[in-house]
């Protein structure tokens, strides 16, 4: 009997090992399917999200190339709305105002904001903490309320309405963003680069131009983009502060929507979008160019 017992134990242990292997394999394949499932759900969710954002935009772009003025299908390709847009004096003037305002307020807000960020992060400014806190409310308070208070203030202080008032308002609105964005960049690189520059014989101006500026350049570029977007997008303050006869693009688009509109609006929107995308692409390339990762 002992002669038989030994192989049978061996056999059963063999079988047990085989069963264990098979179970492990099954478990493994189940884990793999589950991982696949999870991946699939993730992708599905991502696709929904992207569709939610991009489908309206794509339809908007497509309808700008559709011949029907009432957005009727079937789609027939045509450039008629772009041709009409080219002849739309009012929209062009509004567009020019928008660009002038955006460029001017971007330049002013970026320079002033960068200087403020420099002061607040590199020098001991009296009331530093309070200034830092005071930056936040303008970003939190609704633009409608800011615009209202600006309108009242400008009216009573004699600044009045017009492009100059709009410029002031746009600068004021974008300044906190510029300071925060550039300030973050100042925090991210150590002050000892500037100290090193000083020990190497560079005067403060040389240090600023050759060390500080290249280091904060990505932040400044991002801040400028912010400022541009805030101004170019700005509807509420522009609407309040624009005197009759002066409009900006958002104000004019709003006005024409109320009047009843044609796909010209799609055309101008498409143009604005393409320009913004190009700008964003340019800045993001610059970001990689100037900064450490």
């Amino acid at each position: 009997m002992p002669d038989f017992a030994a192989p049978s134990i061996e056999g059963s242990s063999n079988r047990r090992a085989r069963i264990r292997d098979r179970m492990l394999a099954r478990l493994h394949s189940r884990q793999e399917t589950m991982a696949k499932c999870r991946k699939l759900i993730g992708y599905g969710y991502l696709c929904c999200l992207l569709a939610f954002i991009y489908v309206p935009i794509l339809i908007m772009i497509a309808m700008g190339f559709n011949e029907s003025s009432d957005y009727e299908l079937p789609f027939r390709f045509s450039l008629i709305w772009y041709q009409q847009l080219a002849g739309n004096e009012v929209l062009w003037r509004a567009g020019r105002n928008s660009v002038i305002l955006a460029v001017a307020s971007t330049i002013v807000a970026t320079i002033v904001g960068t200087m403020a960020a420099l002061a607040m992060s590199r020098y001991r400014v009296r009331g530093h903490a309070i200034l830092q806190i005071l930056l936040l409310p303008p970003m939190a308070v609704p633009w409608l309320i800011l615009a209202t208070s600006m309108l009242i203030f400008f009216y009573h202080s004699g600044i009045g309405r017009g492009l100059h008032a709009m410029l002031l308002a746009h600068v004021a609105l974008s300044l906190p963003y510029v300071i925060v964005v550039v300030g973050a960049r100042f925090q991210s690189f150590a002050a000892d680069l500037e100290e090193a520059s000083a020990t190497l014989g560079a005067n403060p101006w040389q240090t600023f131009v050759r060390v500080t500026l290249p280091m904060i350049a990505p932040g400044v570029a991002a801040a400028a983009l912010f400022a541009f977007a805030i101004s170019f997008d700005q509807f509420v303050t522009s609407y309040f502060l624009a005197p009759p006869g002066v409009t900006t693009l958002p104000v004019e688009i709003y006005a024409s929507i109320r009047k009843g509109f044609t796909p010209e609006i799609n055309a101008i929107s498409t143009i604005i979008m393409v320009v913004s995308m190009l700008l964003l692409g340019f800045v993001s390339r610059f970001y990689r160019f100037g900064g450490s990762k």
Partner: protein
Amino acid sequence: MSTVDIQQVTKTYGEVYALDQVSLTFADREFFGLLGPSGSGKTTLLRSIAGFVTPTMGQILVDGADVSRIPTYKRDVGMVFQNYALFPHMTVFENIAYPLSVRKTKSAEIKSRVERILDLVQLGGYGSRRPRELSGGQQQRVALARALVSRPRVLLLDEPLGALDRNLRQHMQIELRQIQREVGITTILVTHDQEEALTLSDRIAIFRQGKVVQVGRPDDVYENPRDAFSAEFFGSTNFLKGVSLGVQGGIGAVELPDGTRIFTNRALPHSGSSVTLTVRPEKVLIHREQQPAGTSGSQWNILPANVIQPVYMGASVTYQVSTPPSTFSVFQQNRETRRFEAGEAVKISWLPQHTVVLDD
């Protein structure tokens, strides 16, 4: 060719004295180490010399002229920062050329000088790399080359090797010393690493709470610490407290609370006053015989002891032993054939010249 003279420099932040009437003289071509725990003022002094900190009182003279109130960029000092502070947006060449180009040096001269110094720090051919493409040791050399290329009067080193791993650090210590000798520049090093200070410095100063505790050659400070702080900061040590019995025939005796007498051939305060003694662990012998091997035992301080704990460290063994007056740490080269076990009764002994008398 420069000396730096620190005269009565004090720096206060509110009520806190970061530097308290510090006076030091750094000789021409000297390698001087400032040593101390963090917050002891050594870094504040270095930053005062660089010009990042303006002293509340006192003067900093470089070659006899007071620089304590002129801005950093006019001071002509080179500095290597703890994290090197290389400009990430410039190549190695541009980094090293920077001090020359801000001084409006001609580009041909910049090129030849940068190349020469790159060779000196053994980085020839690395000019077009970016700092982030270099290893820590290479970055350290670029920082050193950049600090030296404009031939400043003083070189300041702020824990320059702290970020390197141990092997590289030892290698760079030797290299740093060689380069410093070759260039012949007055160098001031801040470190909290006593080994680094020992290896590199001609002289050191030990800082504590904004004051200089002791100045001297590293071996002198190590062998003759002035007070308990110096003794403990610079290597490990054993302390004994007792009462002076005065000096007779060149040998002083101190009685410990338990009645043990410790001999020293150093100056003692007058009989009856309390004193603190210190003995370095490596000066102490540990043995089973009555006297240390090969001696008559006269002149030696010999105490009975019990081994508490041997700590085996490969090349050496450190014994914690208990003696009637106190616990001792004894350092022994791992040369003996037999080591002592915990609980073993032994003798420890040392020569009177190794009993250091401290200021209280």
